[in-house]
């Protein structure tokens, strides 16, 4: 089961300024405040992360588009 995490407006704006990987999605790495990095995460519609665990949007420090 995947958890859907809605990103903050700031992160959405950033993602929409970057190219897609395919129609409707991007692949990103996310850096969390606790130092962890989660790689190869799918983002749908520039706003919704698909994750194996739920993460509070406020705990996401940075998103890097691959």
């Amino acid at each position, binding site marked *: 089961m995947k958890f859907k995490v809605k990103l903050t407006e700031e992160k*959405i704006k950033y993602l929409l300024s970057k*190219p897609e990987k395919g*129609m409707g*999605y991007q692949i990103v790495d996310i850096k969390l405040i606790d130092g962890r990095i989660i790689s190869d995460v799918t983002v749908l519609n520039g706003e919704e992360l*698909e994750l194996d665990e739920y993460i509070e949007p406020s705990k996401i420090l940075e998103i890097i588009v691959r």
Partner: protein
Amino acid sequence: MFSQNLPRFDLTQAPTAKVVDVNIINGKQAFQQGMLNIKMFSNVINENTSADKQQEEKMQVQEAFIRFSHFENDKRIDWQNRRVLPGTYAAPIDDGLECIKKKDNINSRYALPNSLVIKFIFYIIPEIGTFLKRGIVEPANNYLGGGKEVIFTRGTNNYSVLKTDEIGLDEV
């Protein structure tokens, strides 16, 4: 959704083109009536690689495209200006409609994540001179891909997104 103040597109530069008044006809109807029988995929793709690995080119003739989406409020579309943002993918309209007609698995053909259940299609007719890259969808998301794809490297012009249709696979 887009019923007012749409421009009239003159497609006469294409080989078999006619004029389509998009103010009174939507993209699907136009295609069904042969009015979008324009040169839709003008350049031969020499390599079976994804669009992002190809050379950027300028669209030389009038072409039409389809974007499949799970979201009616697709955020890659600037709804105020009815244009797509730079870095947005679509499919040539012939490839997209063939997929629908044959009831192919859209996610498979365009290697989309399973969670993107396609519900909407957007018709895109950018102006000649639009920058894009063309390619073949590479395997991803456990699918082989194989469909034709384009990426609008610099986005499209205002009013190039003409119509939204809720997808009905039996209707095309």
